[in-house]
């Protein structure tokens, strides 16, 4: 089984690192994984995309993901034209917003019957725990709750490898908070 995840954010929010952390966690778990950015000339604030593939079998392709199973949106101000194309029917949308899944579907006009939508207020979590609105690690935490393809433990290990010391510990806290919050606050809009 292969999962293809496309990350959408703005430069500075850490979408590329999020894609990498998920792949690292999957590799620590003994799975095959691949993570790479879209490789634009990244600038703070500009739309950024990154990709993660996770599979039980070796991954050979290096093409960008055009038909994702999952899109993760780090910034809800991004237009849906950037993240919706190609998303498989029944695919998962995880978005960083204060809104509930139904409110998000309504405000964006996304058909809630077509996709599984989850929301989490990752900005709030990041501001409270990290003191900066860098939501990537929180979004990884929320993702592995709604799509349990890797364990929380391996996500935490990957984070500690990426950010050793106190910064890593804080990010682990953000991961756990989002992992809990996404279940508590979100509704499957079907």
């Amino acid at each position, binding site marked *: 089984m292969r999962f293809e995840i496309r990350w959408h954010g703005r430069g500075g929010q850490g979408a590329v690192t999020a894609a990498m952390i998920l792949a*690292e966690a999957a590799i620590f778990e003994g799975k*095959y*994984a691949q993570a*790479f950015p879209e*490789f634009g000339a990244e600038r703070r604030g500009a739309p950024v995309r990154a990709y993660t593939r996770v599979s039980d079998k070796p*991954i*050979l392709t*290096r093409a960008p993901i*055009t038909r994702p199973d999952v899109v993760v949106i780090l910034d809800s101000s991004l237009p849906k034209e950037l993240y919706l194309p190609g998303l498989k029917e029944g695919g998962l949308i995880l978005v960083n917003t204060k809104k509930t899944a139904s409110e998000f579907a309504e405000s964006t006009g996304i058909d809630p019957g077509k996709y599984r939508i989850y929301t989490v207020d990752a900005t709030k979590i990041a501001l409270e725990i990290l003191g900066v609105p860098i939501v990537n690690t929180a979004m990884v935490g929320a993702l592995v709750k709604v799509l349990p393809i890797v364990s929380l433990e391996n996500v935490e290990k990957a984070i500690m490898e990426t950010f050793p010391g106190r910064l890593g510990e804080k990010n682990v806290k953000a991961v756990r908070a989002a992992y809990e919050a996404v279940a508590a606050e979100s509704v499957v809009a079907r």
Partner: protein
Amino acid sequence: MAVTVQEAKVTWKRLPLSSNYAVAYAVKDLDVDVIAAYPITPQTTVVEKIAEFIANGELNAEMIHVESEHSALSATIAASAAGARAFTATASQGLELMHEILHIASGLRLPVVMSIATRALSAPISIWNDYSDLMNTRDTSWITLIASSAQEVYDSIVQAYRIAEDPEVMLPVMVAYDGYLMSHTYEPVLVPEDNKPILDYAPKNYNRIKLDPERPITMGTLTGPEWYYEFKYQQVVAMKKALEKARKADEEFKARFGRGYGLIETFNVEDADVVIVAYGGLYGTVIEALEPLVEKGVKVGAMRLRLWRPFPVEDVKKALGNAKLVTVIDKAISYGARIAGPVALEIMSSFYQDEAKPMIMSIIAGIGQRRITEDTIREIVDYSFKVLDRGRAPEESLYWGVRGVKYE
């Protein structure tokens, strides 16, 4: 050829690494003595990681900071001439700036190893991938391997020192891989817990002609018409020998460590009317594009070129000999040539003297990292079967996916 080596007992760690980091781990495990490099996108993280290993005490090496790539390779060959195991890395304009020194490294017969995260060339400026930089080095007398995964990058750097330092070869080696598409992609790589088995496989060759104040010699002296030609012919002979040395290095690597790649790699070529040839990271995309077609009974296969110089003519001909049409995808342009794909040209020349040969079509794609997906590959396969039906391959390279050009 029988390979009689004891399988080494190696404990491997499975790490998430980019191809750039895989290079750095290989350099560390090979106990390289001297590294001189200048940062250039997308190679930079190779040298950053090596610097980190040196700073942490994990690698005891001299890192020489230089002011340009021209100096980086000059310092690297100087270290190699003094007997050190030396390394550098670059890409794109950096490789172009080194061009003069590339010939000096091979002419002096120095076993330098260099990694190339391949990238398009200016102008206009592009930081993205293609193989224009690498293909410009074709005639520099460097042995050239092109890898298609981060694991193969690690393994090829290890094999590269074994080939380069062989007393019958003594030529520099480049290990190339896709800039960005591989250099910045994280994937699982097995690296050894302890580097002893790596050094047993590729022991440092200090017993070679080198600069030594106690026993002074001159290297690269002015050489007149009476002798220059013989020096160059020795490079021709060494390159010929390097082909079998590279094969043997890979076979012995496989016998020791359980992983081998050959000089070329093939997929379903025995049963294919059309064979797609690619190199670097693109091969994986080609395989995933072809798998569902082969399952449906489409007679299509693929070949990957791993050793570019010396060119493995016999291996390539054996792999492609059964095909009716060979479609070669090149990620570089030889401007002004009718067949502008360097690898396509080489494959055509391999078959030229033969009576029976496949049709060969040259396709240019992925220039400046123009996107190539599985769908792109399947479109190329469809077009290939159309060409096969017509019974005649296009006389010119096809510039696949460029704006304003359509092929019927």
